[in-house]
């Protein structure tokens, strides 16, 4: 299976802090890649580099034959890479339904003129978007909460909404930054099942970042372990579990 994403020697420095140091890895099509590491190991920074929010000092990321380093976030998103945020970045004043509809931004075709004149093709598209959004909300278990304001929802629900948005964006690669953080074991389990289902149903490739070892081990196909910005190990979950360096970093 071909690599859908190739990450070559990314170096991201903030002044004297080497947040990501010569990191290389790849993502196969259809696989779930887990990235783990202690706090401050550079996982989220890496995600920010991949999604165009930070510009690295050096390195390349090849997607679809193109180097996406240097592209703006919305351009990268247009190519088909979406993400969730560790600390949740929902559109707080919108309802969950509106959040998901907005997330399908890339798919929305109607021109400004069409929307101003309220012509049939525009109305039809809006209806389709709404239906699709309702389907997605049902998938993540939020069908009863479509008209609730995002800000007022419970934390677990917000996490699911963030995930729903990524689904709505119709991406080929989804980067999930700590999707299970702060969830109890039941919610985390549900989240894990949703992630696996979506990978199968929509055949998307996923990069998953988390702290929770159990969560990662049972969800991903392959793991990259980071520490102080560098990759210290890479392999299958069972291999990583036995890796001495990883054990030292996490337990030592």
């Amino acid at each position, binding site marked *: 299976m071909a690599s859908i994403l190739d990450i070559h020697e990314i170096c991201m420095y903030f002044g004297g802090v080497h947040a990501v140091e010569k990191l290389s890895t790849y993502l196969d099509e259809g696989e779930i890649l887990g990235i783990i590491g202690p706090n401050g190991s550079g996982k989220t920074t890496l995600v920010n580099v991949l*999604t*165009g*929010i930070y510009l690295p000092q050096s390195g390349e990321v090849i997607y679809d034959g193109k180097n996406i380093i240097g592209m*703006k*976030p*919305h351009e990268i*998103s*247009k190519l088909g890479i*979406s*993400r969730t*945020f560790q600390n949740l*970045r*929902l*559109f*707080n*004043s*919108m309802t969950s339904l*509106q959040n998901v*509809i*907005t*997330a399908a*931004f*890339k798919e*929305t075709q*109607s021109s*400004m003129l069409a*929307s*101003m*004149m*309220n012509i049939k093709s*525009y109305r039809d598209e*809006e209806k389709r978007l709404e239906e699709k959004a309702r389907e997605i909300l049902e998938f993540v278990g939020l069908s009863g909460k479509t008209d609730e*304001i995002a*800000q007022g929802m419970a934390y677990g629900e917000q996490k699911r909404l963030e995930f729903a*948005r990524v689904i709505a*964006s119709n991406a080929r690669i989804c980067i999930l930054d700590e999707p299970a953080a702060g969830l109890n074991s039941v919610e985390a389990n549900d989240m894990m099942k949703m992630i696996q289902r979506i990978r199968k149903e929509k055949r998307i490739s996923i990069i998953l970042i988390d702290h929770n070892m159990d969560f990662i081990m049972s969800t991903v196909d392959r793991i990259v372990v980071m520490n102080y910005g560098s990759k210290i190990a890479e392999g299958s979950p069972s291999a990583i579990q036995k890796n001495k360096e990883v054990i030292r970093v996490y337990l030592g």
Partner: protein
Amino acid sequence: MEKLKLAFTKNQKLLTLIFLLCIAVFPLVVHNKLVLRAVVTIMIYCLLTLGNMVITGYCGLLHIGHAAFYGVGAYTSAILSSYYGIPFIYCFLAAGITTAAAGFLISLPCLRVDVDFLSLITLAFAQFFVAVCNNWMSVTRGPLGIKDIPFASLFGYEFNTQIKFYYLIFIVLIIVYYLLSNLMKSKTGRALIAIRDDEISAKTLCVDVNKYKVLAFVIGSLLAGFAGSMMAHYLRFIGPTAFTVDASLLIMQMCILGGLGSLPGAILGAAFFIIMPEIIRPLAIYRVGLGGVIMLLVMLVRPQGILGSRAFAGKGGIFANRFKGHFRKTKLEQS
């Protein structure tokens, strides 16, 4: 309270129609010149508040130079018609285009910078504009302003009475409101709100933030330009004093009271602030302060204004929670 809200949303279309009909027959029933003038002024200001609402209410960009856009439109229309005798319809369109161009240019530097710096840029533009109006004697006649501006006219038909102009601005406002309302409910509106609520998140969902910020300014300034043209051909006189920073602040207050992020709020806010000084005539000099008290009350009790978006609600202001608790108690007692 909830029952009222529910009844309103169910019959929204009917109520809106009734409201529009009332406004439409108003001048046939009420002949008081002052009242008519007030309503016309409200309608012109609605164009201004709608524009400001797009920029500040929907896109979240604090814009304190809107009166300058108003002025660009007014002066463009006045100059073209007074000095060059160009027919009104072209002046009106030119006013819109010129102002939209100004809005476009102002928005460009705003893209690179912090939110607060953006406000400073709009302020700088506003100050610069007033200075130009006051000093470019050859074109704007400075503080004297431009007078004897021709009436608005379409294909020879002159809008030279209150009632005729009333219907002109009414129709313009309805068209503008309809188009804008549709636009804000669509992908464009969603993009602006997304930028307001969380710019970074919007970027990762494929929203070209820069493009939409520029668009917000262009739409807002276009409407202000139209408003300027209408005002110029209504009062038939314009001067720099109508376009100062204080004027921008008044427009902002209208939007705040009506509720940031709501188009009906823009209408409500404009109506309130035009009617208010008429009601408190004897206390006219305290209009500014009353505006301030209203601002404070809004911020302390209901920061999102009367009809505004929850994005501006915060924790509800210091007194709101006390009142909320009271209502909740009585509800429980009832059930």
